[in-house]
């Protein structure tokens, strides 16, 4: 039913837990199933140096969140816009049709985090 990659990320999730003083936080909730993902990003010189997650949901949602924290590592914030649900699904080794929300949820939470980052940057620029 689930790929070895997915099971591996579920069994040993990477980068779990909250982050103190992050540069950006974003979360997303799936209205249908109640799954909830939250990402914390540390950004230095425009690049993600650390990403952490906390997720409530099914196995695939937890695994997708874990995988996304690895996927975003070292990328610029603008590059994160290129992370799509399809890309996450592929990297997870595929998802059953009724678990596609796992990839959508993780990407929506990352989008919320990048939006938060850009808002904060814009505010900083205004203050300067």
């Amino acid at each position: 039913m689930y790929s070895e990659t997915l099971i591996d990320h579920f069994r040993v999730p990477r980068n779990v837990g909250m982050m103190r003083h992050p540069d950006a936080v974003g979360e997303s909730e799936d209205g249908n199933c109640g799954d909830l993902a939250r990402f914390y990003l540390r950004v230095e010189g425009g690049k993600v140096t650390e990403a952490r997650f906390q997720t409530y949901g099914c196995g695939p949602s937890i695994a997708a969140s874990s995988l996304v924290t690895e996927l975003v590592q070292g990328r610029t914030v603008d590059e994160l816009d290129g992370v799509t649900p399809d890309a996450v699904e592929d990297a997870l080794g595929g998802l059953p049709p009724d678990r596609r929300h796992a990839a959508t949820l993780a990407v929506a939470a990352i989008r919320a985090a990048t939006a938060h980052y850009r808002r904060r940057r814009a505010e900083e620029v205004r203050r300067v």
Partner: protein
Amino acid sequence: MRRVYLDHNASTPVHPDVLAAMMPFFSEQYGNPSSIHSFGREARDAVEAAREEIARFLGVSAQETVFTSGGTEADNLAVKGVAWARGTGHIITSRVEHHAVLRTCQALERAGFAVTYLGVDQHGMVDPDEVRQAIRPDTILVTIMFANSEVGTIMPIDAIGRVTRERGIPLHVDGVQALGKIPFSLRGLGIDLLSCSSHKIYGPKGIGALYVRKGTKMVSIQHGGDHERRRRAGTENVPAIVGFGKAIATRARDMAEEAPRVTALRDRLWDGVRARVEDVRLNGHPTQRLPGTVNMSFRGIEAESLILALDLKGIGASAGSACTSGSLEPSYVVTAMGVPTEWALGALRCSLGRSTTAEEIDRVLEVLPAVVERIRSLSPAAA
């Protein structure tokens, strides 16, 4: 890794005696029971012996027992068979029935029948008084399950039967989860139709039966030959029928002795979980419950991740019914009982059976608390 199977409400392993009884009917006694020659007569004798076995167990006559392809077909035959014999009218059922009944009722609604879906109390019980109040002049059928597959609650069927009997309305009971697990005889109960399944009681899959009380007005929904006294067309699944008969005979022998043992293991599991895990609650009736069923909700966890984590440790449990475990909504049964969504999403069903041991329960008690703690630690609710 030694695996632990706690999903007996979904299906059970075929009992060795059942398998042995079935084997000759695949290769040696392969006749068609409708054939006149000796090959056919041997198959016919085997089918009728199995029918007798089941009828005796239920306390009914063999002529009142119709073989079907399983519980779902038995439910379809009962509900549609009675409805279409009338052509129009009102049906009373409950919100916690198996999909085989619920979706059949929904299909009949689209065909013009009226259906009342009764609610249940916090323990999953239908109130016989609500059945009485729901009866209309055009009510043609009441269909309520004997025991719920997800939470194990045993319905007050005799009280409901008194109501339907008094009003002269046929009562169909989905007996799939109760059969062979709790003692009952249809003699004296006001049941007119009872759905049965073989693979929940250590028989093969793909075979079930519908008891139809003599004189019940119904039509067949599958047309063809004269099989099953023209109530269900199609060549009989002889090996499976033989297996079903043997499974029933085995239950008749073992049930009384097994029930208290399985009940004690069930309670050992729940007491153990309750003592080791915080924020957990039991779904279902505290006592009026199937011997092997424990449904518990863990707050802050979605059951799918819990099932996956337990599976990785070799423990097979389920969320709600096996048929809906692909869906992401909280269980409609647990929701109908008024359990809040945040708890309902974390409902785990463990169903024990004849092979379950105390060692297995203790293994689950060793694994489960850590698994729950780990999944909770991943959640945004974690500190």
